């Protein structure tokens, strides 16, 4: 199955959603379906940060949700370390950490309680979990807020707690939807620094974003998606060909028939 040394291989993923009457009205369309992802393929390698770059609605979040086993593709498949995410979703869930602002924490609990809860769900040895909690809470400055209920935390602290909770099991593959969205500059810096640390520790990261500077700062390789289709996928240097990522992006965008009003 695993014909290279890639840690993630995505092959011909497609996903179509039905549009409800309400969605049709909002988007002023008479179409009853929308193709979110259209025959998408790419690979990610160990110890690299791979970025999916595209405008809103390009299908980034849908792709990542398929990788996280939350939704199933209409056709195509993705392989984590050679194992199909469709046929063996449990293996995928045990190998990845999925971070997104869509995944919320229950307001009523404290970060401390939730850390223990998710560690139990992940069947992590209590002693190992306690050590990891100490380490991560310290790294992200959650210590003094460990006993404060989520609902009483600031939004920055909530996001840090959410990040920590999704990596209680020290996953080798991290899938991160819009890492810096809604973060204040300090928390954003903390998160990007941490992603670099993870890469240095040999972890693989797949992230989605529409922020050029983030890709330029973090990503080793990048895939550019428009309307569910991959228009370019290569190392950052090869894609940019000497120009800036932003210029290159809009060049590809116009080639794909997009218009900037």
């Amino acid at each position, binding site marked *: 199955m695993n014909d290279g040394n890639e840690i993630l291989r995505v092959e011909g993923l497609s996903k179509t959603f039905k549009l409800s009457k309400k969605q049709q009205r909002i988007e002023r369309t008479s179409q009853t379906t929308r193709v979110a992802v259209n025959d998408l393929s790419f690979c990610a390698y160990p110890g690299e940060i791979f970025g999916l770059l595209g405008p809103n609605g390009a299908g980034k979040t849908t792709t990542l949700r398929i990788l996280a086993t939350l*939704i199933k593709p209409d056709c195509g498949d993705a392989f984590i370390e050679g194992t199909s995410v469709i046929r063996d979703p449990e293996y995928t869930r045990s190998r990845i950490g999925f971070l997104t602002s869509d995944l919320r924490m229950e307001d009523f609990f404290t970060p401390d309680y939730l850390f223990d809860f998710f560690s139990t*769900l992940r069947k992590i040895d209590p002693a190992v979990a306690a050590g990891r909690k100490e380490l991560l809470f310290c790294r992200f400055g959650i210590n003094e807020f460990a006993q404060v209920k989520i609902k009483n935390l600031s939004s920055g602290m909530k996001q840090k707690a959410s990040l920590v909770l999704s990596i209680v099991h020290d996953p080798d593959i991290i899938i991160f939807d819009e890492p810096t969205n809604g973060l204040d500059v300090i928390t954003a810096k903390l998160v990007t620094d941490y992603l670099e640390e993870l890469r240095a520790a040999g972890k693989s990261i797949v992230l989605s974003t529409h922020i050029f500077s983030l890709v330029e700062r973090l990503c080793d390789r990048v895939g550019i998606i428009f309307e569910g289709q991959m228009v370019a996928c290569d190392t950052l240097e090869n894609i940019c060909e000497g120009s800036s990522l932003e210029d290159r992006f809009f060049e590809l965008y116009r080639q794909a028939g997009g218009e900037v009003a």
Partner: protein
Amino acid sequence: MNHRKSGFYAILKKELYRFFTDKRTVVTTIILPGLMIFIIYSFIGSAMQGFFSVSGDYAPTISAVNLPDSIEAIGQAAGLQTYAASEESIEQVKQQITNGEADLLVVFPKDFDRTIAARESASVGYAPPNVQIYYNSTSSESNTAYGVFSGMLNAYLSSLDTPSFVINQGSAAYDLVSEENATGFMLSSILPLLILIFLFTGGVGVGLESIAGEKERGTIATLLVTTLKRQELALGKVVSLSCIALLAALSSFVGVLLSIPSLLGASGSEIAGTAATLYGVSEYLPLLAVILSTCLLFASLISILSAFAKSVREASTLVLPLMILIMLVAVVGMFQGAQSGPLFFLIPAYNSVQSMVAIFSYSIVPLNLVITIISNLVLTGFCIFVLTRMFNSERIIFSH
């Protein structure tokens, strides 16, 4: 902890921790229902009291067989009107007392006065004559008349030098209450329906919130990206909800027990005492099994509904038809009498009510009981299977 089941325990623990550390939900789910029932029932009870109490100038209908002159004289002095009855009419009068048409029947042995008078001259083997007083304990008039008449006889007895006669000796049934009128009847008629209603309503509030709420707030997807098995999540949700529903039902039940004094004119501890003497392990164990299996089934039905709904609001709209359906089936089960064939015990809610009616009236058919419990558990298992499938469905999980 068994690692294979740790997901289930983690969910169960989290749900119960969430519930019991939130004062508001504990108060509204467990304390308030019992309290409300107590207040409302007590109020209704005292309002109805007027109907049941005996008015001051009520003249009881007392029939007497072989009424001796001595007693007739005392009775007239006390203002008691007695009607002479023949020995042949005894059974007829007894029936009237059972039906509430007559209040009291007193049967004296023949030559009562002469026997008593001769007691001192009698040989060693003097057999004190037995005065039989028949009454109906569920009629307040009859009870009052019984109290007055036996009090009068006792006063007469103590005025004599030696205890020369006895009242209601032997094992004859002097209380002419029909079996259906007794406490057992009250328990067997209202309780099954009440228990069923309490089990359902107890779980509704928390149950609708538990999954629809998590969907609405986006916290359920956080669980689904972990290695937690969907089945463990479904089982954890259903079992934790069952525990809460049981507690809520217990609270409502205590509320009913406490309001019984004003509702029925008997004290709650008396009823509880009666229940304790009326029923033993062979009734309580099957009862517990029926209640537990019903509770699990209700909790899993509510959970499915909660998972199906897009929001807590939609869930609370959807639950109404289900509740009405269950109540209808239960009411039919209550008035059906306990003679349905075994196949009827496959029908949920109906089977629980019928089984409980049978248990309270000592007419359990073991086969029916087993069918009830197994069919409830199998249905619960099926619901958990459906719930597991629902947790796997992106259309269900992301439909908010």
